[in-house]
């Protein structure tokens, strides 16, 4: 997927023929004059891009959601764009590399500025796997409070679709979303629990109509993957009595932890654990943050 076209220069001008067309759009304001980069420049990387952004603080839920979404996006040929910040950004990059996808990281500081160990290691891997590290700041320009929002406009600029994984109330990801609005790019937000502080921002985006909630259907249309639902599920009748009981219980009473299920049923905790895992493998139930629910 990631062919190499060697370009030795470490910078690329706006009038270079390889400069991404998308960034030349007049909607990208202020205009991007020049980009510094690491890795092998490859125009194909920019053909179909999805930005996956989110808060620095990531919950188990966010991690789990990314684990589902990113492989699908990669599988559908998207290059995953993010910001190399710890939290959702780094997780997105990592997952992309794990499932063999292409990654672009856009920095909010100079291309040669010192990075934290984890970020540096990840950056190295991205380059190694044919991805790119981009920045509009030269050399060792250090990060400022305004460089990150500016960076977001490039992330949005080169992407065709934006996915906000998790965002708190005042997350920078909301800034990304507003760039996307200005540039007319579709934004998807992963909805979360109303109680979860890490989902406040994403829920707000959905509530305000600024983003579409990223449901399974949406994800499938996004990745043109329509066979996902059909493969699942042999009929309820074929199941064992106890498994059926568990599913019915979860359907009627909503998501529950194992302790609660044990209290409300006649099964022992050990048996419930075992059954739930089998049901999860068969695709009947899912676990998130210790709560099990029927799907």
């Amino acid at each position: 997927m990631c062919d190499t076209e060697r370009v030795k220069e470490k910078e690329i001008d706006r009038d270079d023929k390889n400069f991404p067309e998308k960034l030349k759009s007049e909607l990208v304001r202020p205009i991007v004059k020049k980009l510094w980069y690491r890795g092998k420049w490859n125009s194909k990387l920019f053909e179909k891009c999805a930005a996956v952004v989110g808060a620095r603080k990531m919950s188990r839920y966010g991690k789990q959601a990314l684990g589902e979404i990113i492989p699908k996006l990669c599988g559908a040929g998207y290059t995953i764009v993010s910001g190399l910040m710890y939290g959702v950004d780094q997780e997105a990059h990592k997952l992309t590399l794990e499932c063999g996808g292409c990654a672009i990281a856009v920095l909010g500081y100079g291309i040669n500025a010192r990075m934290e160990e984890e970020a540096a290691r990840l950056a190295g891997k991205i380059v190694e796997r044919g991805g790119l590290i981009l920045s509009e700041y030269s050399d060792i320009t250090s990060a400022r409070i305004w460089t990150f929002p500016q960076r977001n406009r490039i992330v949005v600029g080169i992407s065709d679709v934006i996915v906000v994984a998790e965002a708190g109330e005042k997350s920078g990801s909301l800034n990304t979303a507003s760039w996307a609005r200005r540039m007319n790019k579709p934004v998807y937000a992963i909805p979360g629990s109303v109680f979860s502080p890490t989902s406040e921002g994403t829920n707000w985006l959905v509530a305000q109509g600024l983003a579409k909630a990223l449901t399974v259907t949406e994800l499938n249309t996004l990745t043109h993957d329509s066979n996902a639902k059909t493969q699942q599920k042999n009929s309820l009748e074929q199941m064992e009595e106890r498994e059926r009981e568990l599913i019915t219980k979860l359907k009627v009473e909503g998501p529950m932890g194992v302790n609660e299920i044990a209290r409300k049923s006649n099964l022992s905790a050990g048996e419930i654990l075992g059954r739930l895992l089998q049901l999860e493998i068969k695709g009947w139930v899912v676990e998130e943050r210790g709560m099990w629910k029927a799907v």
Partner: protein
Amino acid sequence: MGSGRAGNVESCIVNIMLAKVKSVATVGLEAVEVTVEVDVAERGFPAFDIVGLGDKAVSESRARVKKAIENSGASFPDKRITVNLAPADLPKEGSNYDLPIAIGILLANREIEGEIEGYVYGELGLDGSVKRCRGTLLVGMLAREKKLSAVYVPIETAAEAAVIPGIIVYPVRNLTELIEHIREEKKIEPMKTIEILSLLDDAEPQVDIGEVVGQEVAKRAAEIAAAGGHNLLLVGPPGAGKTMLAKAFPSILPPLLPEESLEVTRIYSVAGMLPSGTALMRRRPFRSPHHTTSMVGLIGGGSNPMPGEISLAHLGVLFLDELPEFSRSVLEVLRQPMEDQTVSITRAMGKVQYPASFLLLASANPCPCGYLNHPFKECTCGERVINKYRARISGPILDRIDLHVWVDPVEVNKLTSTDERREKLDERGENSTQVRERVISARGKQQMRFTGIRGMYTNAQMGNKQVKIFCKLSEEVKQFLNTAANKYNLSARAYFKVIKVARTIADLEGMEEILVNHIAEAVQYRENVW
């Protein structure tokens, strides 16, 4: 050593005033016979020397012995006294040579006529009283090994030796009593042999597992841990009941076997930690060292190496509360003993090997603030802080923990809601006795399984080789395990761990064969909580 009869006065030549009394030195968990030779010479300036590599306590023994003899109504000879502790090249430490030295002097000086056979062991007070000493059990064990008939030990710790059958234990209260005993004026009443089994049956529970409300999953994991000897890690927010559960854990452990009890008692006797008047460790030890404990405190050490917490937890539980708070270097030293179930400590005084086969029970908060993934409280930790916190427990340590369990915070309304509901809860919760019964029967199965394999008692101890022999999986089960392994990205190591845990779950149910549900349950205890 060993020549001639023990402790008799060499009185064939009148001019030589020499006496030999047998005593015992402890080196690590081993006891070594020591002969206390006392020479009282008429010629030369009055003096009192002790040779034979004694430490400060031994050399100070001179003052105690002198005063104790005088205060017991006997006279201390104004002659040249030389005491040799043989073998002379073995370093000796401690105050337990006071009593044999005193007796030796009195015999050599003909203050008392008679014989003393057997080991004499004990510290003297200035008033002649005999004080408690570490390692009394070892004295009894050595006496049986060397086929000696009697031991003279401090009355306070005499019960330790009294569990050894076939020897006579004389509990000595003070020097006068022993003098009268040797003179055959008034015999000391020997102590009755204590039946080990009679001591072991009662295990007074501190916290019953039934008192832990809710936490069904954690309780189940505790049951599996106790049954299969698996190490257990509990992760959860503060106040979830981790510590409470840990405290209830000893109540579901199987009782000590008689041999096991002796093994544990030996360690406690050497460490001087048996409560006075107690003959034996009746229950499996439960050690919970504070997280500021040093490396030496944990594995043992000192110039004359003493057992550390891991040896004191031998055949019992080592509970490390707030595991990430322990310093990393301290935790790392656990790796070798966890693997070998024994620890060897080398110091200037020599090399000692202490057994350390313990079950590690650990608890941890999920992050520094404690509220990561809490259902209604917000965690205030940044990702990096969390990563740093996680890194404090290294892979190799996690690797040795078979069961990883997330402990939910208890919802207060569930605990205090209507009485009716509360009753229902109590009804469902089992008490420790019921759980313990299952644990004992599962252990029984394991004992049968591992007969003939030395040092292997539990499923947790199985290596990959044994897993292949003892944990045969049917095709269906194997297929399921592979599916699960793919879905949850189980490593090869986790794969075997799951099988071992599944073996224990099957044992708990009394099943020979490992079924899909056993495997499925075991997969749930994989490393996804840390």
